[in-house]
């Protein structure tokens, strides 16, 4: 019986993969301007979403304490609801930019003939866990409110500093390749 279940599961898995594999139209990631796309994603993360000012404004309890001490219960409820919505939007945006970075990586790596299988597997795992962490954070904010994680400001600021440092090197690494591809284009190579 266990054998039968195993083979039925493999069949079901194949049918499921067909469902995901064959949507109505040819699917593919956009190839145009991947470098610009990743630069934009990094800029949004570095100078927008993860900037200390923005993270502080959303998550630090100063505003919350003021509203709690100076206003009516109705205003407090409204304030908390708005802050939660804002925090959720923030997590959603971070998630989106990470997805954008992943898209860029996959869009580049699929052309690279010397791709390493294990490195790709590790990267796939890393992307999956970061995105999972985003979802967990979203759930925490949704369930416990925006002030359930008071050390979020410090953590995200540190993350921003590290991501920015790494990302600058990352883009420096890709830019010479980009320039070489333009050189090839002028010599009659592929057109971007």
């Amino acid at each position, binding site marked *: 019986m266990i054998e039968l279940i195993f083979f039925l599961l493999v069949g079901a898995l*194949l049918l499921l993969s067909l469902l995901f594999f064959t949507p109505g139209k040819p699917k593919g990631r956009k190839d145009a301007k991947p470098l610009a796309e990743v630069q934009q994603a990094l800029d949004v993360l570095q100078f927008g979403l993860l900037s200390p000012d923005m993270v502080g404004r959303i998550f630090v309890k100063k505003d919350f304490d003021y509203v709690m001490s100076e206003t009516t219960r109705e205003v407090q409820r409204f304030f908390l609801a708005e802050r939660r919505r804002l925090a959720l939007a923030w997590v959603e945006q971070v998630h989106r930019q990470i997805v954008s970075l992943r898209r860029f990586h996959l869009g580049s790596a699929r*052309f690279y003939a010397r791709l*390493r*299988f294990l490195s790709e597997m590790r990267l796939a795992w890393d992307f999956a866990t970061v995105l999972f962490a985003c979802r967990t954070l979203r759930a925490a904010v949704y369930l416990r409110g925006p002030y359930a*994680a008071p050390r979020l400001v410090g*953590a995200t600021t540190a993350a921003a500093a590290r*991501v920015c440092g*790494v990302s600058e090197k*990352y883009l420096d690494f890709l830019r010479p390749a980009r320039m070489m591809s333009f050189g090839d284009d002028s010599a009659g190579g592929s057109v971007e």
Partner: protein
Amino acid sequence: MLSLLLWRVGILLEGLLLLRGFRGKTLAKYPFFFAYIAFALADDVLGYMQYWFAGWGSYAKWFWVGEFLALIVGCGIILEIFRCVLSPYPGAERFARTAGFSVFVAIAGFALIYPHTMPALSPGGTMFELERDLRTVQAIFLVGLFGVIRYYGIPIGKNMRGMSLGYGLNVAALLVGSAVRSYAGVPLPGTWNGIMQQASYGLALLIWTISLWSYHPNPVPDTSVRLEEDYEAFAARTRSAIGAVRVHLTKAARQ
């Protein structure tokens, strides 16, 4: 009666598909696929003649030979999908090849260990079990291939989409059918199981006929970022960036 009807419809569709392949010049583009269709047509026509002139008993002897050869020739369709969809993407192709090889090694290892740990195959059900096991290998390869195509966001054209969908559906139905048969020991002809397999093959033929009516090449990628430096460094940098974000987000989630 229904079984015979499906058989005849299948022969007609196979013939139509070959004719369209010849006239629409897709035959040269997808040689493995059309080799499979040509084999299936020959197998069906010969089998049908044998059934018609010599009766079911004579056909049943031929059935398993044809079924087994069709299974082997059908692997060409997987090769076709692999070749046509992944060849413009050397990175994804390498990934799929390595994954496929790893799966093959794992299955070969399992096949060596399995006879020593499990009871022997039942003599009556050996062909069912062999078909089931080989279909399982095909299904695992297809799932892996579709997974790689999906993961790397590789665009696919109408021909390849139809070919994959049709063959995937057929393999899934044959796998389920052979698994149920090898478990319950149900004989093939006239049962719901046999009808289901014939119907799934008919559906696959219908999908192939529609999707391969004319040639639709796979979309060609417009651009590629050329990674001239060491891939390992590229991957490590991305991993490091993602790792930093993950650590901080995890910390934040725990607070």
